[in-house]
């Protein structure tokens, strides 16, 4: 480590960040803007990984494209940075190719709910054993802040300069109604609860979906004159209401309105692979040969 | 080289009959046989057809051009394809379902109540196998042994007896048909 470390104002000998075993420190500093929330979400993910019961060798991260999509490049795990919107089908292939893997999809709202929306609903319907961390900053940030499927009504974006008039998705409701077995929403301020949720989701079998509301200061906050990322964090502090088990139909996010957060769904349902194996065993009996992975 | 077209309506096992002819010729008689079939809405609705080319040498052009044999199991299949049958071809029909015009050229007509026989056997779906038994005798294109093996190895185990029975009925009907014809020629 060549960087100077400071304690107080007195430079001290370098030590590494406790997350170094999970992060690719050779790639830090990352590309995200000052006061962007993605890094905070990543820290929560890393914190959760310290506690899960799965060996790190078996945990993979798949991202799509965009700001959040870059997360795959910063985790020291088998990590894949795929194409726009296709993180979920890529992850589906990765998981089914080797069912021993635990695959976590971390990507943005544009990627998962916009261009990849079809994959989201079908992955949830199948109860594919994946964890999805959808970092929602309400815009297509990397391309300069265009309207997304999550942009709140009236918010200004580069392609809705007079305000957005398209109804946004209520993502937890979408995921839950399609069959996700674990659904939660937190903001980047709720780091501990978020880490706990991620830990639960990783330890759970089936399709888990966590929406993470993240500040985008450079694009979203600036264009809407909401201050910087810190102002958005303060907004979350004052306006996020924790309501576990809330009816997912009531989780719409209005512009600068209350944000309901919490764990909304935590149920059991057979996964795609469980169903495939159980059904074939039932129908084919002795003749069925379960696929166990690439070394089969 | 022999070109065969089997026509009928969906659900009669037209394609399956083409498959069994091709399998008998290529797998059990060691000839070459290429099956092509009409796909699309036509396979699901009214009429459908299967085409088989049987040859001593490799079949190069996969489609039939002027068929030597037409098997018609429906009036529509007959009307649609009869004009394309070779002038000295063989026309095999289900006599209850197809009312043919007087034959053109030297075309010979061979008829069997295949649907009725299959109903007697208790299952309409084996009309094609009855027809196949008849076909085996009438055309002499494939050996009896190959034909039986092809039937046995192309149907589900639980339906094998029924199918073989259907084949025998068609085969027997064919033998009798030829004997009758010979008699009428001799008289």
């Amino acid at each position, binding site marked *: 480590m060549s*960087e100077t470390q400071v304690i107080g104002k007195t430079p001290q000998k370098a030590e590494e960040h406790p*997350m170094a075993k999970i992060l690719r*420190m050779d790639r830090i*500093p990352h590309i995200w803007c*000052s006061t962007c929330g993605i890094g905070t979400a990543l*820290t929560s993910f890393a914190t959760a990984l310290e506690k899960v019961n799965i060996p790190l060798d078996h945990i993979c991260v798949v991202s799509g494209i965009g700001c959040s999509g870059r997360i795959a490049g910063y985790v020291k795990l088998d990590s894949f940075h795929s194409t726009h919107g296709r993180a979920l089908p890529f992850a589906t292939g990765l998981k089914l190719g080797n069912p021993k893997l635990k695959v976590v999809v971390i990507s943005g709202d544009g990627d998962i709910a916009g261009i990849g929306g079809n994959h989201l609903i079908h992955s949830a319907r199948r109860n594919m054993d994946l964890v999805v961390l959808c970092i929602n900053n309400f815009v297509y940030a990397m391309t300069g802040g265009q309207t997304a499927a999550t942009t709140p009504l009236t918010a200004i974006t580069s392609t809705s300069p007079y305000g957005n008039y398209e109804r946004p998705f209520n993502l937890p409701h979408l995921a839950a109604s399609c069959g996700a077995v674990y659904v939660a929403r937190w903001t980047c301020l709720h*780091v501990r609860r978020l*880490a706990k949720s991620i830990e639960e989701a990783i330890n759970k079998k089936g399709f888990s979906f966590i929406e993470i509301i993240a500040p985008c200061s450079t694009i979203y906050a600036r264009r809407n004159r909401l201050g910087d*990322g*810190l102002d958005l964090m303060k907004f979350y502090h004052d306006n996020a209401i924790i309501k576990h088990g809330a009816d997912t139909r009531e989780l719409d996010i209005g512009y600068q309105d209350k944000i309901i957060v919490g764990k909304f769904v935590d149920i059991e349902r057979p996964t795609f692979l469980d169903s495939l194996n159980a059904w074939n065993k039932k129908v084919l009996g002795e003749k069925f040969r379960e696929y166990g992975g690439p070394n089969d | 080289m022999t070109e065969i077209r089997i026509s009928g309506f969906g659900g009669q096992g037209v394609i399956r009959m083409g498959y069994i002819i091709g399998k008998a010729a290529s797998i059990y008689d060691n000839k070459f046989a290429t099956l092509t079939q009409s796909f699309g809405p036509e396979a699901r609705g009214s009429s459908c057809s299967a085409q088989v080319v049987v040859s001593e040498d490799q079949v190069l052009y996969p489609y039939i051009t002027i068929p030597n044999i037409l098997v018609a199991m429906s009036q529509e299949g007959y009307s649609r394809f009869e004009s394309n049958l070779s002038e000295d071809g063989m026309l095999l029909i289900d006599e209850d379902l197809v009312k043919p015009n007087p034959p053109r050229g030297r075309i010979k007509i061979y008829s069997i109540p295949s649907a009725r026989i299959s109903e007697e056997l208790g299952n309409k779906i084996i009309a094609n196998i009855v027809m196949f038994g008849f076909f085996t005798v009438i055309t002499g294109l494939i050996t009896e042994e190959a034909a039986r093996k092809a039937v046995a190895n192309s149907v589900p185990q639980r339906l094998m007896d029924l199918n073989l029975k259907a084949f025998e009925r068609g085969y027997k009907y064919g033998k009798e048909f030829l004997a009758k014809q010979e008699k009428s020629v001799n008289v």
Partner: protein
Amino acid sequence: MKFWRKPLDADKIQIPHGELHIVWERCKGCSFCVEYCPREVLELSIEFNSKGYHPPVVKKPDDCVKCGLCEMLCPEFAIWVTEKEVDKVES
């Protein structure tokens, strides 16, 4: 640490002391750590780092109880805290 009235289990209470580590050049000056430190241990430096941001500095090192919130909120992996020593409660 002093209490007005000594808790019954005072001998079991251990309050950890944190030691903060800040990577000066990695910081992008978001000030999340400063804002949300529950004991107001940190403040923004008046100095710039080479990227032009004001990283945090430790204002009250003795007050850090190693809650780790700064570490978790930092989007840059630029601050973390390790355990320094543990205080016993005194009456």
